[in-house]
């Protein structure tokens, strides 16, 4: 059983190697983009679980990322000093609120980041449950359009709401304190610790998902994905499981949103946009749909390149093109089990029967 964690350990080794690598060539600023890549990868692996193992597509996952990010951003920048009523005093005394200095030297009273994080996750879960119920009952393309729509609604809400910063987003979000004096923030001095914190979270997430896949529930999910009515006939509560995976993937996205917002010190409406959602799906697709490690490695490479600006103004184009190419030629994803035999079949003259994704 420890064999299961071997790839996890290997990946952890890779992460350490990368960090030491940047140290040796004196290019430690790379760690910033790598840290951001880590948080985006968290969204990707959660989405991979949903698409690959529960067989449900979501074109709106950036929405959950944004819910997480915006809630925590808002709560940790909303100055409660101005409405200093009885409730606020109570909260302040119980330690739920935090007093800090803002950039201009004034004094702010805001919600403690831990509470803000909890609120963000709670809202993410609530929305996922509310929306997932009816949405997951829809078939294939209707499901895709519905999730697309939900992402857009979140986008429109954050874009159009003044107290959420409208088109400017929310900035000056404080760091996220962790036990042991650690702080998730974009501070150059804590670059290395933040790098390991971010990737540590991703590795933890991977471990949890790998465990799930190998477990009774993971088996049931594969069954649901393979033949849903037969799975139901075997006593698997298909709707409930699909919903649970949906919510789980939403939590991954929301959590990533929370921490990346604290790391970046802010969030903007583009994080909720369709382009981001498409990006996540494209990465899962090229990584192999049901391949967690494939999605993770593709996310590492593609997100890093994108953040470093290697794609220039063609950033969105690249991911759009990836999505098209994968959907055209390899709808089951690129790095999957039967890749070699499928390639052989494609090159031969025989017509190929398509499986519905």
């Amino acid at each position, binding site marked *: 059983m420890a064999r299961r964690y071997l790839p996890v350990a290997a990946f952890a080794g890779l992460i350490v190697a990368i960090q030491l690598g940047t140290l040796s060539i004196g290019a430690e600023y790379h760690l910033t983009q790598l840290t951001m890549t880590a948080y985006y990868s968290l969204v990707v692996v959660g989405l991979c679980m949903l698409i690959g193992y529960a067989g449900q*597509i979501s*074109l709106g996952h950036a929405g959950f990322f944004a819910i997480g990010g915006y809630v925590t951003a808002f709560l940790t920048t909303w100055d409660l000093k101005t409405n200093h009523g009885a409730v606020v005093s109570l909260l302040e005394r119980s330690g739920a609120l935090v007093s800090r200095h803002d950039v201009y030297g004034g004094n702010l009273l805001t919600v403690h980041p831990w509470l803000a994080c909890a609120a963000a996750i709670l809202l993410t879960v609530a929305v996922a449950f509310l929306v997932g119920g*009816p*949405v997951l009952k*829809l*078939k*294939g*393309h*209707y*499901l*895709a*359009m*519905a999730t*697309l*729509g*939900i992402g*857009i*609604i979140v986008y*429109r*809400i954050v*874009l*159009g*709401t003044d107290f959420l910063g*409208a088109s400017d987003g929310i900035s000056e979000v404080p760091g996220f304190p962790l036990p042991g004096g650690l702080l998730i923030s974009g501070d150059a001095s804590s670059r290395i610790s933040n790098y390991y914190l971010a990737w540590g979270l991703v590795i933890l997430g991977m471990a949890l998902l790998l465990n799930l896949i190998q477990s009774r529930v993971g088996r049931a999910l594969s069954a649901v994905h393979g033949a849903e009515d037969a799975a139901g006939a075997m006593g698997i509560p298909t709707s409930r499981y699909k919903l649970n995976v949906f919510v789980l993937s939403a939590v991954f996205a929301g959590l990533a949103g929370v921490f990346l917002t604290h790391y970046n010190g802010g969030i903007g409406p583009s994080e909720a946009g*369709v*382009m981001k959602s*498409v990006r996540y*799906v494209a990465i899962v697709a090229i990584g192999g749909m049901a391949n967690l490690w494939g999605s993770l490695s593709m996310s590492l490479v593609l997100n890093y390149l994108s953040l470093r600006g290697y794609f220039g*103004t*063609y950033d*969105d*184009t690249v*991911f*759009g*093109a990836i*999505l*098209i190419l994968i*959907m*055209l030629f390899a*709808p089951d994803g690129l790095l999957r089990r039967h890749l070699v035999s499928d390639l052989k079949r494609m090159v031969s003259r025989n*017509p*190929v*029967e*398509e499986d*519905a*994704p």
Partner: protein
Amino acid sequence: MLGGMTAVTLNQFVPMPLAILLAVIVTMIVGAVIEIVFIRWLYKPSVLRMVIITIGISILIREIALHIWGESVKALPYFTGSSISSINLGGVYVSSQVLWVVGIGALAVAALTVFFNLTMLGRQMRACAANRDAARLCGIDTGNMVTLSFMLSAAIGAIGGCVVCPITYVQFDSGTPLAIKGFTVAILGGLGNSTAAVGAGMILGILESFSIWVLPTAYKEAISIAILLAILFVKPSGIFGSAEAARLKEF
């Protein structure tokens, strides 16, 4: 979007009616090219795969438009009158361009209805939509039918873009919200029924406009999606469609 943008560019060189005609033709060619390059050789793709592919294609078109025209906002001049002139219709002042939109829209619906119900080609297309294999067995070239349908819908989109852009202006990314509204309206009206689509479109427009009484203006764009979601959850076959027909249409 392509229709509007192309028309504006061409309008610099040729008179407007010709510019619009050429823009529509260009867009139709683009539609055909897309179908031939991306869609035609797929073997029985699932609808979901098609949806994602076309979403990807729309992103590519957007990006190409961005690189051709930049982020500038463009508009055709008003067909008749100007942005401040209006026509008095029984006490209500309506911009002349709006009448053009309604008029051309009605013309398009009428033309489509005639095409699908009275011409051989139109009936062949409906046969393809209903049951592709059976249509092929009847000697209909289903591959070309699909291309033709792409070209037709591209043409209608282009005409719509041209006619509306004096009022709403057009930009490289104006296509996306319109596509979503288009999809909403298509589902709302029940797929395959163009008159119902028009009806649904008007209902959507009215709902969107009146929504500013209840919700802040900034959320107006989200209304159409919220309505789409509501329809999908409650009655995916649309207001005017029937559940049986929707199921039969291989969706």
